[in-house]
């Protein structure tokens, strides 16, 4: 008699690896494969649907048959590991990058990365920004050691293709916008976040993106300022704070290097 663990691993082998052998011997059915197929179909259909909901633009770009084929292979290689399917599919962009049948659509993986960022923004937890008074209360020598914690909806994304235009054009059915896409315009620097009105994807210039990325990575303020080396970053910081992009901060340890870099703070 199989143990429960043996039975569940045998069922997993049937559903995910398409190996019915061990499970079939445990079933009290005339044609075990038919019954196992019902469950396998539910598994693949359900997880494919979760991917389609996360990657609607990819689905439209490649068409349903192609999408289902790619999803089937992806699911077999990266089956979900938790019952929270809203978090499933983070590896799909990387999978698409190496997926030979899609090689002619060189921008596909980058569009998928944008879709994943959008999806993260949609589902991110509700968290309030921190109270600015806490920052004002810090002495100036401590303010430069501030490391921010970004809102969980935020992603700073750099892509080699104008994926924001492609993404909007595909989902909006805007053929004119898509016809105008030039894949050779160089990288785009994007901020993806959830605002009160919904998810927003905005373009930043290269310097502003790098400054925002440094802050969102939790680098100390002095370091981010020093790297930017540009007086406009104070205005940018004020904008980030006003937009509620940070939910908390901590203080980096005092160290000589950091203190030295203060001299270059604008």
């Amino acid at each position, binding site marked *: 008699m199989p143990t429960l663990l043996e039975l*569940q691993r045998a069922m997993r082998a049937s559903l995910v690896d398409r190996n019915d052998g061990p499970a079939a011997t445990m079933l009290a059915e005339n044609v075990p494969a038919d019954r196992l197929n*019902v469950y396998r179909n539910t598994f693949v259909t359900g997880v494919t649907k979760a991917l389609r909901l996360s990657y609607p633009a990819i689905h439209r770009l490649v068409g349903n048959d192609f999408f289902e084929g790619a999803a089937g292979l992806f699911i077999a290689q990266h089956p979900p590991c*938790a*019952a*929270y399917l809203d978090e499933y599919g983070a590896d799909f962009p990387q999978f698409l990058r190496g997926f030979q049948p899609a090689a002619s659509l060189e921008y596909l993986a980058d569009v998928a990365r944008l879709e994943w960022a959008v999806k993260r923004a*949609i589902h*991110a937890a509700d968290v309030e920004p921190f109270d600015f008074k806490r920052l004002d209360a810090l002495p100036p020598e401590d303010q430069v050691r501030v490391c921010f914690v970004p809102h969980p909806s935020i992603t700073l994304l750099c892509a080699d293709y104008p994926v924001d235009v492609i993404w909007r054009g595909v989902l909006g059915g805007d053929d004119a916008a898509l016809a105008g896409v030039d894949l050779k315009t160089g990288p785009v620097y994007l901020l993806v976040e959830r605002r009160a009105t919904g998810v927003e994807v905005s373009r930043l210039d290269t310097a502003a993106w790098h400054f925002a990325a440094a802050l969102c990575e939790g680098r100390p303020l002095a370091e981010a300022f020093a790297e930017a080396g540009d007086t406009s970053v104070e205005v940018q910081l004020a904008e980030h704070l006003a937009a509620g992009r940070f939910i908390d901060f901590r203080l980096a340890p005092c160290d000589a290097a950091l203190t030295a870099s203060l001299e270059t703070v604008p």
Partner: protein
Amino acid sequence: MFPPAAKQQSPIPAKAGIGLRFQHHQAVLDTDPDVAWMEIHTENYMGGGTPLRYLDAIRRDYPISLHGVGLSLGSAEGLDPAHLERIRRVAERVEPAMMSEHIAWSMANGTYLADLLPLPMTEEALAVVCRHVDQVQNYMKRRILVENPSTYLRFRHSTIPEWEFMTAVAERTGCGILCDVNNIYVSAHNHGWDASTYLAALPPAAIGEIHLAGHSVRSLPDGSTLRIDDHGSHVIAEVWALYGQALARFGPVPTLIEWDTDVPPLDVLLGEADYAGALLASAGQEARRADAA
């Protein structure tokens, strides 16, 4: 029984409710439908943003039941503590009037199989489920209900009739039973059981909720037909009849209409709920007459 009790809304009345789906969020707020309560899939509200904002507004006017589909109470490998905590956080925010899960499993070898898979009806599986129900009730600090599954296959080494398995889980853990009448009908057809016998074997005092839904019929290559619990159509007449038997045995119990695929306009769901509500009302009159006699 599960100290100290978690905060919750006032109890759900023995009336008809509907499964709340994203498609109907706005319509519910706009039309304030005449329905006694609503049930949500816990897994759909684990993030932030729009769904929770709608739910915050809707729960002010309707008692909410949290119905989980992913906890895998029957997993030999144990419950996923991260998932248990996600559920607890949703419960903390919603303070639901009821919480339920399934007699099924969906995790193996660290893979989530995205379905409510059938358990072998064995003493080992019963012990695993009971241990996990105890764990959940202690973690959530409240009683939960467990739902009987729809199944499409059976295991050779099963020794316990499903209705005895359900009863034993309730007796050993103190949990309630969410009696899915459509599931009983579907499984009875698929396995050649008698649905009335199944119903008659369940302990009335443990029944905390009833589910009703539509199902489809699929022909298999071997010539047999399977009834598939896809929640994609109206409740069929035979299931309404079985529901009548359930009410006669259990008395009026909060009853939910579920519809998850090809979700129709809200009015269609409300129509099904109205019909369930009428049957509930007459079951209530019967019960009062019986008490008076």
